């Protein structure tokens, strides 16, 4: 907070010294520690990108990554959105803001600056009604963190098929080791795990048939995915009482060496690397869980930069130039080296060249090898009204309180309401 105040005061003083100077208000999640510990990198890049701002100063406010989502929604409702925000999620939620006119269209800036690293998948996730409204930056991937020492001790190889994964889980369970550390008290972690299982059970196309087409949630593939997830719980792959264990506690359980694996994303890479001081940690990509399904993983943009529609044309131009600087090759290196944040478009080779941790390289090498078949993350893709049904329903499904059929019927009902209300996002 002190830092925030000093940055703001500094910026205000700077603004005061040049009477005609314009200021851009910026909300971001880059704090000094924790999941999004890229605060020092952000500070450095604001200084580096000052020339691109052409005399415009940045008034920065840091918000926690979970809270910024809610804060931004309230700001939209109050008509007080910051000029520039690095928030989440894209897709349906971003489309909702665009629909009510809260966001500026960025098509001309994409034409001007190119931003080639933003591929069609990401452009789609940041578009609404034929226009693009945000610049995604952070590359999120989902994978399996595993304890190499435990695997070696039990003579288990890294699974390359789902059957091998199941055999490994059974072997760890038989030895009294938690196969997969998992905690779902916070409600959202199950969504990520299920997103991965869903994509690896039905594949990208079958997901798109439901999310963007007319296929119902109650299809055979989705049912198989729900049953797979439920089976992991009933077969004892997860720790006892997982619906009462927090996400951080589950990570801590894995880092304590009492669990062989944990399935989560790149967003905790640095915390994991720092915490895995008792054993040799590795990462592998979960293999496909059904015949004929291509290898892939859940991916997303983590968060995206978006501009307020109420910002002046001059402010929008300056903010776009500033964003272009934040996404430059030089800046990407700073994000990786000082922000522990891998931006979209960064290659595994660059990570090696820039001295990223081997686990980081391993993760991105695996996840970026399947860009054509990587699939969606449910809770940043579905409308909020559906996500808020998904969270408790997944707790019920994985807790054995609801069958796969009941889960999918409830999801389909919520989905139909969202579509009727015009909340569905289609890229």
């Amino acid at each position, binding site marked *: 907070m002190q830092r925030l105040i000093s940055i703001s005061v500094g910026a205000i003083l700077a603004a005061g010294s040049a009477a005609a100077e314009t200021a851009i208000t910026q909300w971001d999640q880059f704090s000094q520690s924790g999941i999004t510990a890229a605060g020092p990198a952000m500070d450095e890049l604001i200084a580096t990108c000052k020339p691109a701002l052409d005399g415009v100063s940045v008034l920065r406010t840091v918000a926690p990554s979970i809270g910024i989502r*809610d804060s931004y*929604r*309230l700001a*939209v*409702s*109050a008509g007080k959105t910051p000029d520039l925000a690095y928030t989440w999620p894209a897709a349906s939620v971003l489309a*909702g*803001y665009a*629909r*009510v006119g*809260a966001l500026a269209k960025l098509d001309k800036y994409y034409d001007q600056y190119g931003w080639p690293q933003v591929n069609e998948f990401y452009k789609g996730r940041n578009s609404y009604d034929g226009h693009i409204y945000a610049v995604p930056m952070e590359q999120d991937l989902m994978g399996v963190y595993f304890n190499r020492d435990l695997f070696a001790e039990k003579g288990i190889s890294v699974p390359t098929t789902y059957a091998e994964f199941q055999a490994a889980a059974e072997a760890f369970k038989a030895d009294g080791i938690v196969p997969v550390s998992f905690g*779902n*008290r*916070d*409600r959202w972690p199950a969504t990520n795990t299920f997103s991965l299982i869903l994509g690896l059970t039905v594949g990208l196309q079958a997901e798109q048939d439901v999310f963007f087409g007319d296929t119902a949630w109650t299809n055979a593939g989705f049912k198989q995915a729900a049953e797979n997830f439920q089976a992991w719980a009933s077969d004892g792959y997860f*720790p*006892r*009482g*997982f*619906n*009462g*264990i927090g996400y951080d*506690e589950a990570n801590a*359980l894995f880092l304590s060496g009492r669990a062989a694996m944990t399935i989560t994303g790149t967003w905790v890479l640095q915390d994991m690397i720092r915490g895995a001081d008792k054993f040799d940690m590795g990462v592998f990509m979960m293999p496909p869980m059904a015949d004929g399904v291509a290898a892939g993983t859940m991916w997303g943009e983590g968060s995206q930069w978006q501009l307020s529609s109420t910002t002046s044309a001059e402010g929008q131009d300056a903010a776009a130039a500033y964003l272009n600087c934040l996404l430059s090759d030089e800046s990407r290196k700073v994000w990786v080296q000082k922000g522990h944040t891998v931006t979209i478009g960064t290659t595994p080779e660059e990570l090696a060249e820039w001295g990223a941790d081997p686990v980081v390289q391993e993760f991105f090498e695996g996840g970026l090898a399947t860009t054509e078949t990587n699939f969606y993350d449910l809770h940043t893709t579905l409308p*909020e*009204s559906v*996500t*808020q049904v998904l*969270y*408790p*329903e997944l*707790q*019920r499904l994985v*807790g054995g*309180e*609801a069958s796969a059929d009941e889960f999918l019927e409830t999801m389909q009902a919520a989905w139909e309401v969202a579509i009727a209300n015009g909340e569905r996002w289609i890229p």
Partner: protein
Amino acid sequence: MPTRSAYLFLLPALLLYLTFVAIPILQIVYFSFFDWDNGIRGGFVGMDNFARLGGDRVFLAALGHNAIWVILTLAFPLMAGLLLAAILAERSNNTRRWLGAIYFMPRTIPLVVAGIIWGWIYNPLFGLLNYILDGVGLGFMAGAWLAEPSSALLSLNVVGAWTFFGFCVVIFLAAIQSIDPSLYEAAEIDGARWWRRFRDITVPLLKNSTLFLGLYAAIEAMRFFDLIWVTTQGGPGYSTEVLTTHIYKTFFLVGDFGYAAVLSVVLLIIVLSLSSITFWLLKSK
């Protein structure tokens, strides 16, 4: 004092009340008649938002959980508090003072903090409760207290009772001390034992305090939010969902301000009704 001057003195409080209580309440009622998209007000929809209540199974579950919470609060902390206060009343001043302070202490802990503490106690991985049960040979009773729908609400209610119990003891204790001691002396001379004195003197003469605490507990139980949000966020599934968590999710997470306003109006009606009953009953005594 002239009437006009009296009104002038009342004016600041009245203005504050109108600004921060009455107008926001009216605003919420007004909002409930409109369609909302991401916090932006749309068209007038009449009673459409209210019509959604009947088909909202989360609302019905939440209402049921609030009712269970009220019943459990009345059943345990209130009754046990009354009994303990009656026992304490016969002890020395020092004992009363010390034990009263100890019992009251949980009341001073913010519910958010209580939630964090009890979240650790109930934790399935490293929770103190399971550890103790294991230690005393009752390991078979150890459970995932907040993770199972069958035990989550009850486990949270124990925390609620823990924070409310001491308050009941202190209020009852003060009320018992105001009872004329000669009534107890006369009963003792007539050979009435402790239970008889408690049943026929203490309980009837504490009717007002019991009524006040009972309705206060009921109102508090309807407004409960922080403890549940910190520990379970209404889960697992909907097993600890209450009206306030449903309102929070609908407003802040879904952005459906119209329906959140409807839920708030329902909660307001329930709490106002309970408050009115309290005032009416206390006034009629």
